[in-house]
Every structure is written in C-alpha cells, then in structure tokens.
C-alpha cells in the first residue's frame, strides 16, 4: 500500500501574524483537511516537529478532532522537516492511522526568532560554541560552509547567484513575502555581512510567521478524494554519529554534506529513480550554500559543479533542474521547510505559481530528511 499527500493548507506568510501560533496551526490544518476533502473526524493521527510549541491536545480540540490514535514528533529542526511526512506515511502504511495531519506553525519573526544569539543558551551541548560568539545558525553552519568554499575556491558572490534565482521565482509567486521584489547580484553584494567571508544578509532565509499543514492518507482512499494525489515514492531521514541538529563538526571532511549524501542513497533506492528523473527539486535553504552542497550530495551535479550549474541558469525557470520554484525559504517564507513540501505537491497538481510544465516527479530535500513525490 502506498501513502499519498492528499491535502495541503497554509496561512499567509508574514512578519507579524497578529494571532497565536495555535490559531495559525488550526487555520493551516483546517485548510489542509478541507483541501483533502475530509472532515476533522476523519483525522486519526498527527505529526509535527519536536520544536513545535503547539500541544497535540490543544490542536485536536480546536479542530474538533474526536480522537488521535497515533501521534509523533520529528527531531532535527528544519533539516528534519521531511521526516514529518515519513512518519505520517509509516503510520498509514502500517495501519496505525488512516489519515494523518502534519503541521508546523509559529511566530518565528514576531515572537521567538531563531536568529537571536541567546537561542540555545540553556543547552549544555550549545556551550561548546555559544560563548565564542558562534551564536546563530548562520554562524554555526558557517564553519562548514567555509570548508566548502575553501575546497572549490568559491566567493560569497557565487552564493549570491542562488539568491538571485530564488528572488526571481519569488517575484512571480503571489504567495511569497518577496513577491514582485527581485534582486540583482549587485543588491546581494551590497547587503551587510552576517558571517564573513561567507554569508551576507541576502544569503540568509527569512524569519516568518505562519503555519503549514498537510494530510497524508492511503493511495486506496485517495481515489475518492477531490485533489490529484502526490504519491510518496520515497521518504527518509538521516542522522549520523557525531552530529548535532545544526552541525557535524566532527566528520573528517566538512566540505561535503554527508547526511545528504546518505539520504540520497536511501531516496534513490526506495523510489527507483535517479536525479535525472526529477522535474523539480525543492531544497531546504536556511542559507544559500546548502543548496550548493545538497545539489552535489543528491547527485544533480558532481562535486564542486554546483557553482556552474547555478550560474549557467540550470536551476532557474526553464533550466535543467528547476530548484525552489516558490522562491524557497529565502524568497517565499520560512515555515521551517514545510512550505517547500507544499510547493512540491502544487507542482505535481499543476497549480504552482511558477509551474514546471508536466512536472511528474519532485524531489524535496531538507538535507537530513527528504522525499520523492510523484503521481500515482
């Protein structure tokens, strides 16, 4: 039995939602359940992030779901975002649940900002980098990006080529915060340093308020539902010894994204596809360099070739492998990666703002978790 994504829903993506994160979760969930052609009474499972601050009981009560017989949470922050769908699909395929609601909702700009230095201050595991001013995700990831730049001789302007493409897609996506606001490489180079010599402000994802939800159910059931199904052809999540949810400093060679390499092996083996079979790739980018490192780890190009792939238009509209067609987390909004999964579903339905004609297979990667979606 296959599992499918039957419904998608979201709130607007903003900088100040003006309402509680619980309300955002409820609004996104209602939209997804309705989109799936279901009612709250049909939902019997839930998955969200360990980081999500909405309690399952509060969500189900406010949605009017009578009971959940399965609930799960995924580790790893945004890198683990695709694991939510893996958990939901596993529950459906094993019979533990028949329709699983997946959500992520927060006020990540107006309430608790991930990019603030004191985030993690009470965690002993963070104490081996926070006191040294390595105190935001951009900086924490920076020590890895530096080795990638060093190995292949890249500059910050090379990373900026990705941002230009992301903002180009966002400019024609009415759902994007940066709708109708494209940038040039000169704009990128004029933005201030966050982590020198790697990341400027425009290399960093947004901070956003909003909610995203999806409904996962079985392919058998999908035949009676209103929307075209997105079949989950592969789903995996990957954690390696020595790692931390924000870094893996203790792997011998930091110029490669080892979790994503391992993930790629799982996704291609499970789905029977390879990189050249994909029509669209949605790639989690809290910061621009992770697109480069994931393109290589996932096999879309060889080691060190992402710069040329991106600079030659290979990931833009009409390119060899369009990437982050919603504008990604830099251009559309940062809902911890979940909005990239929704965009993958839209591409398969043929309803994306920047639709890739005839898209039938989509890769969604968050680096430490990923999906291959296709049409059943």
């Amino acid at each position, binding site marked *: 039995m296959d599992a499918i994504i039957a419904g998608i829903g979201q709130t607007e993506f903003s900088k100040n939602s003006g309402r509680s994160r619980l309300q955002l979760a409820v609004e996104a969930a209602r939209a997804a359940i309705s989109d799936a052609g279901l009612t709250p009474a049909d939902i019997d499972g839930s998955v969200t992030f360990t980081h999500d601050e909405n309690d399952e009981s509060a969500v189900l009560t406010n949605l009017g779901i009578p009971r959940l017989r399965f609930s799960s949470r995924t580790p790893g922050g945004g890198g683990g975002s695709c694991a939510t769908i893996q958990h939901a699909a596993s529950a459906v395929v094993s019979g533990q649940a028949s329709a699983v609601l997946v959500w992520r909702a927060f006020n990540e700009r107006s309430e608790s900002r991930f990019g603030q230095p004191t985030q993690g201050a009470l965690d002993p595991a963070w104490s081996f980098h926070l006191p040294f*001013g390595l105190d935001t995700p951009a900086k924490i990831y920076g*020590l890895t990006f530096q080795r990638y730049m060093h190995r292949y001789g890249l500059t910050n302007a090379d990373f900026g080529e990705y941002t230009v493409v992301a903002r180009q897609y966002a400019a024609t996506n009415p759902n994007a915060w940066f709708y109708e606001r494209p940038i040039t490489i000169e704009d990128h180079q004029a933005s201030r340093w966050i982590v020198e010599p790697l990341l400027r402000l425009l290399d960093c994802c947004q901070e956003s308020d909003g909610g995203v939800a999806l409904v996962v159910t079985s392919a058998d059931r999908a035949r009676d539902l209103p929307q075209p199904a997105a079949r989950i052809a592969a789903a995996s999540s990957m954690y390696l010894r020595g790692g931390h949810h924000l870094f893996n400093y203790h792997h011998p060679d930091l110029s490669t994204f080892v979790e994503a390499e391992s993930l790629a092996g799982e996704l291609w083996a499970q789905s029977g596809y390879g990189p050249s079979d994909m029509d669209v790739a949605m790639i989690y980018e809290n910061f621009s360099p992770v697109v480069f490192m994931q393109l290589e780890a996932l096999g879309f190009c060889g080691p060190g070739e992402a710069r040329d792939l991106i600079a030659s238009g290979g990931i833009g509209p009409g390119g060899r492998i369009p990437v982050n067609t919603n504008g990604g987390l830099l251009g559309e909004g940062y809902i911890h990666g979940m909005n990239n999964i929704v965009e993958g579903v839209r591409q398969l339905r043929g309803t994306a703002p920047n639709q890739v004609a005839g898209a039938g297979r989509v890769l969604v990667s968050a680096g430490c978790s990923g999906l291959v979606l296709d049409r059943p």
Partner: protein
Amino acid sequence: MAVIPPAIDRDSQFFWDGVRAGQLLVQRCTDCAELRHPPGPACPECGCLAWKAEQSAGCGTVYSWVLSHHPTEADAEPRVVVLVDLEDGVRMVANLLGVPVAEVTNDLPVEVFFTEVDGVPLPMFRRRAV
C-alpha cells in the same frame, strides 16, 4: 565583549572545571582509549561508560574559521571563531585572539590559552610559533 556563559551539566562539568583551573581536559575512554570531545557519558567506539579526563597540550591547527559579526549583541566587535584540529585528534571551537583577520587561514598553527571574558573563564587560541 559580552559572552553567553556556558550551561553546565553532569557530563560537561569536568571540562568547565578544567577551564577554571587553566587546563584543557578531554575525555579518554578507559577501555578502548578513544579520545572524545564534546563530552558525553559513553564511548561512541566501544560503548564503555568509564572514562578519565586527560589534559591536552592544546596545540593544533585551524581547520575552519569565520568572522562572526554582531556576536552576542548587536554591533559588538566582530570576533574570529575557529574550529581547531588538536594534535590529540579531537576538534574544538573557540576564538582566535591576536591575529589580524587578513592573516587567518586554514592550517594556521595555534595553541590554547585561558582568559576571562565578561567574567567568564574560557579557552581561547592564539598563533603558535613553529
């Protein structure tokens, strides 16, 4: 220079006690002799729960580095953060002091020293003569 003080638990207490005493302590498994850092209760190689804290000479080379802008508070003076490969065989994050940014490179030889920053005792690195 503002600093976020370390949060200390039972697994990491020995390390920060060592810093206060001017020693860089690294865990060594008493069974298979594997070194590990950051601290943890069990050896990833053999699973042994017994370990001893061993003093490191603190000599190594820069494996990676960044210049952190706005460290800890907005508009604070940028700080060089280094990921150091210690000769003992473990990696460690700290600041590099006394080296102009233009002279910071991967493979720069460094050595540990200890200083108080914002009232917090911390290990730091400086250039090592070779």
